[in-house]
């Protein structure tokens, strides 16, 4: 059984992908493109919460009007250098207000976790060979960041004047 990191916990995965056995209690993941084109999006929340797989080339704008019916979004990273998912996540979280699980899945190692988490991912389905306990620690590799307008940091910097160097 696949294990994932979700909100800083190591858990059994409850999602299943095309071709995987239908274990009880698991939710089937559909591609976002099929779901939007088919009945899922039209059915809204009444059709039950959806779990969607977003490919790097999928435009998040197409998903935006239907987000109230979505409980899981899994963004695929086919290669370690794949970077579109970071922007997709940012847009889903910031521009479209998506608040449910946002998962990164694919050729990812603990080294990408800090970036992923800061773009809004809260669940990670990493390379099967990756050590998840070490990955949890890697989420805390950095205690500071220059972006995101973190208010505490802004306050700190306001106090720092030239010459007050560390």
């Amino acid at each position, binding site marked *: 059984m696949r294990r994932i990191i979700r909100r800083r916990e190591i858990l059994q995965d409850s999602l299943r992908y095309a071709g995987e056995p239908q274990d009880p209690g698991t939710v089937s993941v559909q591609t976002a493109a099929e779901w939007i084109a088919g009945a899922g999006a039209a059915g809204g929340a009444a059709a039950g919460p959806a779990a969607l797989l977003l490919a*790097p080339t999928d435009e998040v704008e197409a998903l935006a009007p239907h987000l109230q019916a979505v409980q899981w979004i899994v963004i695929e990273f086919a290669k*370690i*250098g*794949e*970077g*579109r998912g*970071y*922007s*997709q996540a*940012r847009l889903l979280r*910031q*521009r479209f207000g998506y608040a449910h699980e946002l998962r990164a899945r694919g050729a990812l*190692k603990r*080294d*990408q976790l*800090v*970036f*992923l*988490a*800061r*773009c809004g991912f809260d669940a990670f389905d990493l390379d099967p060979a990756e050590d998840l306990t070490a990955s949890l620690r890697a989420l805390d*590799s*950095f*205690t*500071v*960041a*220059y*972006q*995101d*307008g973190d208010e505490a*940091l802004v306050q*700190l*910097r*306001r106090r*720092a*004047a*030239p*010459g*007050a*160097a*560390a």
Partner: protein
Amino acid sequence: MYRYDQIDQTLVEERVAQFRDQTQRFLSGALTEDEFKPLRLRNGLYLQLHAPMLRIAVPYGLLSSRQLRMLAHIARQYDRDYGHFTTRQNLQFNWPKLEQVPDILAELATVEMHAMQTSGNCIRNITADHLAGVAPDELADPRPYCEIIRQWATLHPEFSYLPRKFKIAVTASPADRAAAEVHDVGVRLKRGPDGAIGFEILAGGGLGRTPIIGQVIRDYLPQSDLLAYLEAILRVYNRHGRRDNIHKARIKILMRALGVQEFRRQVEAEFEAAREFAPRLADSEVERMRAFFAPPPYETLDDVADAAGNAGLLSGARAPYEAWYRYNTRAHRVAGYRIVFVSLKKHGEAPGDITAAQMDALADLADRHSFGLIRSTHDQNLVLADVPQRALREVWQTLESLGLATPNIGTLTDMICCPGLDFCSLANAGSIPIAKQIHARFDDLDYLYDLGPIEIKMSGCMNACGHHHIGHIGILGVDKHGKEWYQITIGGSSAAPAALGEVIGPSVPKEAVAETIAKLLDVYLEERQDEHERFIDTVRRIGVEPFQERVYETDHSTA
């Protein structure tokens, strides 16, 4: 200069710890080379022909004497007693040991330095005018904006896995000494309608296999929107830039595919849509940053009457100090001071190379006579920007004794040169041996001075690290059936308005490069209207044909 606070220091130290762990995992086999590669590249580490190469960031080319001494220490302790300054104002070491790189980075962190994002598909070191803050012709010091952009770009969560590398240059002078037009994004300081400082934004420039001059995508951007607009550009690029072909992945290719109008429309639309969450650059942050780059405590001095020396006293022989003053120093905007160029283009040395001993001595010299600061230029020299005129002779004598006073700045032998086949695994041909050949062929300083300002830039392959496209004379190494040949272009320029050189004809064999250049120079000397018309101006006026005719008229050795 900018000084780290606790946040900056913590960040570089945490980065060192992270990379130490990553290196350890690679060495133990837990990470494959494919997995390690993007991680090491983002810390400036290449695995090269002979050994790893470590590229250390010198943000916008500014170094303190303490930092330069640390680089000397690293050269001695971990490398082969020398380093190499690059066209992005950074410093490369060619012989570090992989397992020692985390230690090198830890040492760098003690002097507020790092190697982050000097390679890899991310936002690279921000470059700037090497005369920022002292140039008489600038609108305002661009470096506060460079540091603001540097911090914003460092470990940016969304833009650390871009389709390809991304280079930003900032300039505040009409002369554009930062080559903003050949960057992915060029930021030019500009006064707005209300007199406030803002920016003209260019995008889509770049060299490499597909050289393109950048285009203006925003005529005027208010200061507060700088980071928000950069985010909009990067987001459009990150989402839509090609990732299927490494040679078509730069933003210039996306811009060309979309057309500048459509690209601009998309950026502006993203900029508007992102307003709520985009970073806003507060005036107070700019002021805070500006204070770091305040002018040093200049003395009130008068210009020294005989600073330029008096060659008349020395009968006959060329007067070395006078030549150095004329070619290697520039006017300063403060009376009594002068800008001094430190030539890293001595005959027999690879352009941009500097030894550990030279670094230490230069650090001492900067402490004595230039407020402890040293700058690197994008044409691979160094600068002492604030030298009192009364100290010029002493500075010259010291530089002369160090082999750093070759009076050739701006002349033919002040060449830009990539490491080439001698070090680089990408290269098709050597660059350094060609630089040596040119030095040997044109060793007569009087002849060089008669030629006037002329820029040779050379790359050992089409990746164009030596910026050959924008050399007045560009030299590109190509591989022909296992032999090194060289394609020559003329008419390129990085100064505004930037221009790409035109190929004069079939490439020439290695041994004929200097001779080919000699023919080009003959045509120039015959055709120029007077000694004030530069080589590049003559090329622009008469075109490439007369040069082509001369090079290829009787020569049957070309193919």
